[in-house]
């Protein structure tokens, strides 16, 4: 019984020591992570207390995706977003037909599946313009297009999805 009680006290002391060491390690880790890597690190002033937390420091990190102003590195290219297909009239290429797999990419504009884009960003959408369309639009939010539907011509702004 006495031996058991002594064993219990030793166990409690061991647990206390383990907890203390753990807290000490956590504190040191927190200190190391937060310590600025500058010559002025000595000026760091410790003024507050609280539970040790280890928060990764983000300095000059890659910015979070934003709704605007970002380089659209991972955006689906324009010609794929809208699945443009060459459209011919009397044997001549007269534009590119919109046939997106997901018609919701046209939401917000008046364009519809089956419309034929003839002018984009002020320039005729011919083979040469089509060839560089993805590069020209890779970072744009939207483009002005002229399109043909049932023989009539229309204009609208077509927004690109990120």
């Amino acid at each position, binding site marked *: 019984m006495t031996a058991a009680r002594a064993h219990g006290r030793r166990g409690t002391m061991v647990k206390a020591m383990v907890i203390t060491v753990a807290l000490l390690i956590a*504190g040191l880790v927190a*200190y190391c992570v937060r310590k*600025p890597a*500058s010559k002025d690190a000595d000026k760091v002033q410790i003024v507050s207390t609280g539970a*040790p937390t280890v928060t990764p420091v983000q*300095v000059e990190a890659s910015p*979070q995706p934003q709704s605007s*102003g970002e380089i659209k590195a991972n955006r689906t290219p324009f010609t794929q977003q809208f699945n443009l297909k060459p459209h011919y009239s009397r044997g001549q290429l007269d534009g590119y037909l919109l046939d997106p797999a997901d018609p919701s990419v046209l939401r917000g504009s008046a364009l519809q599946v089956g419309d034929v884009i003839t002018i984009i960003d002020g320039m005729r959408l011919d083979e040469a313009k089509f060839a*560089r369309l993805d590069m020209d639009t890779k970072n744009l*939010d939207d483009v002005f297009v002229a399109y043909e539907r049932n023989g009539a011509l229309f204009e609208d702004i077509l927004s690109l999805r990120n």
Partner: protein
Amino acid sequence: MKSVLKIAFATSLVTFPLAASAETFVVLGTPGANLNAAVTAAGGRIKKRLASIDVVVAEGGSGFRAAVGGKAGVAAVAADRKIKWIPKGERAVFRDADVVNPPNNPAGIDPRFNLQWGHTAIKAVDAWKMGYEGHGARVAVLDGGFQLNHPDIAGRYDPSCTADMTGEGIAYGPNSDDDTGIFAHGMHTAGTIGAARNGVGTIGVAPKATLCLVKVLFNSGSGSFEDVAAGIIYAADRSVDVISMSLGGSLQKSEEGASTLRQLIDRAVSYAYKKGALVIVSAGNDGQSADSPKTTGTPANLIHLPSDSPQAISISATAPRGWGKNQNVFLDNPASYTNYGRSVINLAGPGGDYTPSVTGDCTVAGVTRPCYIFDFVFSTGAANSYYWSIGTSMATPHVSGVAALIVSKYGKMHPAKLRAYLNAGADDLGVSAHDPYYGNGRVNAARSLSK
């Protein structure tokens, strides 16, 4: 043991005192983030809020950047910096008594108009003859200081959208680094866009457009990213149709803070675009290609701002060679200094150039000078004067002026549509459809108004 525990706990939260030599930082937030709390908790002091793009400018000590970096809502942070946005080489000017205070000519055309070959190149007069001189269009000019009572600028700007972002005051000031002793770059660009048609001096491309004059560069020609971004937002919030920025700064991608500063400018430009302003910017005067840096020697990791911003229209420069000798020469040679590349150049405009082989003296419109000077762009300057200069800074306001003429005809429009009108009217020069130097072409006011 208690003391050990206390140290362990104490190291978990630290704040940094604001050092006497506090730096300025730009703190970019996630959408809608409360950056005030983050900055305060990191021991910083908010200097300026650019809430519309989720950015604050803060002052902080040496540890501020590290402290604020991990706060909730903070996407990125970097120390702001002042850089040269106007390369010294661009300020090659000639100014003297012959072109200071040109004689008033109330009965006829502005006496120095015949020095402005750029108007011929972009068919500005043809556009005027169609009845469009920029009336109803609002163009913000973000640049150095201005002389608000210059005879060709007074009455051309809207005081309610004219402001100084630098703290120096709206006027330009002495600059020992400039050939003329005064940094009047903003006067030159503003005059190219909107100098009055008043029988005095020169005429702007859109002489009836309303100018918003926004000083974002110090008299030294340098400027901070904070002020440039603030100027863009200021102009965007004042219903301008065009923001003309004849300035550009370069950063190495590998530089500390470069990606954050780029994001700052990108956000500001994108904000302006969403507010309905087309941002037209100079491509830069380094003679570098952005397309194939390895073969052209261009530093592969160079960022040029704001011309690299996704929604900005980047302008290269064109020039005649020997216009002073023969005013029928080709006006659209790519300028020797202009940056180029299909991946960056959208359009071209008259920027002037120096051609050493053009020698001798010439007399044009009663002004006698070395012939090569007449290949420069002539516009308004300091102290009621006028001067010649070259650069993509001079090309950009020509394009901005054409954009104003388009707005004067068709009314306010989505910037994507305005961009399309500029493209549609441009003269397709060089490699068909999209040339490394001309982009979609050199702007043509008359053609854009005929679309």
